[in-house]
């Protein structure tokens, strides 16, 4: 009897630890995006090196968490909601790692844009705005994961459409700049890449929210379009 409760508590601790690790990784990734966007908006490119450096930590987290999930599966053979949690975590971690990569790309893009000289076109505020929305999506998706709140997760999924629309609007705007003055093309393309990364972050945040719904309700709502 004693043995049993001890085992299940250990199992609980394993799962809690796993979740906390995922969220810690999420926090790091969030900070990375913020730093990258700040670098773009303020032109302070000295932080770019730190961001690239920190991406190794993100990757390290991915490996550690994958390792832990394998251990949990091998040792505890989780079933039902525990199994969904473990499987969901492996997917969330993949998305987080990709977001980390996008943050790195934004940081490098910011360095290119600012090294190129004066940032005369697209007011940094527009990019900042769409980036803020993507960051909020990620933050909410992670909050949903911490609370296993599938209602809020559905809201996050819907928010992605807005980021997509804004991304398209920004690209259209950049195209007009490029047509007016071909000298802006190099910078404009770099900015397009940054926006693209931001848009991808929104997509990954949406994926995370979908995994949360799966973990909480056992419903797979990926690729189901409007139903979600």
């Amino acid at each position, binding site marked *: 009897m004693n043995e049993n409760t001890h085992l299940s508590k250990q199992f609980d601790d394993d799962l*809690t630890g796993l*979740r*906390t690790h995922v*969220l*810690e990784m*999420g*926090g*790091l990734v*969030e*900070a990375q995006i*913020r730093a990258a966007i700040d670098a773009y908006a303020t032109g302070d490119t000295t932080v770019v090196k730190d961001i690239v450096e920190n991406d190794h930590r993100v990757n390290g987290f991915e490996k550690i968490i994958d390792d832990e999930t394998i251990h949990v599966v091998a040792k505890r053979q989780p079933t039902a909601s525990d199994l969904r949690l473990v499987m969901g975590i492996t997917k969330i971690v993949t998305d987080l790692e990709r977001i980390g990569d996008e943050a790195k790309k934004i940081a490098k893009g910011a360095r290119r844009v600012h090294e190129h000289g004066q940032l005369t076109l697209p007011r940094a505020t527009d990019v900042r705005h769409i980036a*803020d929305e993507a*960051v*909020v999506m990620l*933050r909410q998706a*992670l*909050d949903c994961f*911490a*609370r296993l*709140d599938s209602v809020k997760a559905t809201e996050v999924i819907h928010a992605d459409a807005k980021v997509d629309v804004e991304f398209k609007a920004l690209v259209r705007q950049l195209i007009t700049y490029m047509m007016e003055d071909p000298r802006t093309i190099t910078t404009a393309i770099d900015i397009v890449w940054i926006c693209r990364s931001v848009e991808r972050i929104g997509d990954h945040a949406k994926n995370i929210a979908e995994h949360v719904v799966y973990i909480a309700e056992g419903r797979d709502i990926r690729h189901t379009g409007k139903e979600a």
Partner: protein
Amino acid sequence: MSKPLIQTLALSLALGVPAAVLGILVSPVIGLSVFCAVLALQLIGFLRNFSRLEAWTRNPLPETTPEGGGIWDEVFSRLHRHEKELRVAIARRDFDLQQVAAAGQAMVDGIVTLDADSRISWCNRVAEQQLGLDLRSDRFQPIANLVRQPAFINYLATGDFSKPLRLSSMRGDERVLSLFVLPYSGQERLLQIQDVTQSERLDQTRRDFVANVSHELRTPLTILSGFLETVRELELDPVDQEHYFDLMAEQSVRMSRIVQDLLALSTLESAPPPSGGERVHMTPLLEKLHRDAQALSAGRHSISLEMDTGDLFGAESELASAFGNLISNAVRYTPPGGEIVIAWKRQGSSAEFSVTDNGIGIDAKHIPRLTERFYRADTGRSRETGGTGLGLAIVKHALSRHQARLEITSTPGEGSRFSTVFPPTRVAA
């Protein structure tokens, strides 16, 4: 053995006596059956009381405690008393707990209590707002799951809480929080969160101010020393030399003006507020300011003066410098040919002073910061027109010492209006 129990036993024995008498006189069988019948009756009474007790324990309320005779009465009344006392004690404890929780809610700072594993055990509403928590859903969550900033997680992990942690809120509202961790009762920890956005901003303003003063003074100083060197080391013809001396004089005038303005500001800040006694005659004051403005404009602008009667109570020198600053700003920022209207109007028992121009105007984003020291909406233009960057700061201070506030409305390209309303206590008929 307790008294009621002895009594009960004694009663049973006493009933045994007539049974024994019957047994001896009639027959042992009848005696025994009578004794058994008496015991059975007693047992039935016991069982009845027991079943009442059993029923009551399912939902023990002091009002419904059963009543019984003999030994049961004692038990029931003791249970009744115990239940009642328990309820009073619980109510008192609930009240105390609520008081403590209410005190926690009343705190200006955010408070989160953490258990040994850094899980949230309680937090107040301020903390909910600051950290984006929701106590209903987040109780017993590890706090690191919701406050995920790497800096915070490191801070918790290292366990060195001698210095507070400065954390910028991730909730996208640009707030700066200062976190303290205080251990209490063994493994539990209290997280105290202060919103230091305001003091952070003040610090920033102070740093900016020092940097600005140094910069503002260094620029003319550099020019001055540069020209000094030139004049000393080069053979110059008298015309050039004269020109250089003029430029040097100009820079030294500028420096002394900055120092004068700084001194004026610090006097305004430290001096006691002006008494309401001194009557400032507005008509001569405004006419003098009007003449000064025309002299400064040298005929480039049309400057008109609209005056109601009515004087002010206050410090004449401060008011003169505030009004003069506003008027000279209008002259300097209005292109030649522009119109400037200086107005002194009664509004019921209060009165308004205003300067309206149709000059270059001010972008809306600059307006809230205009009265900051050395704040310049357009750096180049402001220096070239001879401003020290302190004028509006002086105006704001001087006016606020007269309970008046500077109001600025402006449209870029169309002009600006600087106005201030004096309260009835400052206005004399």
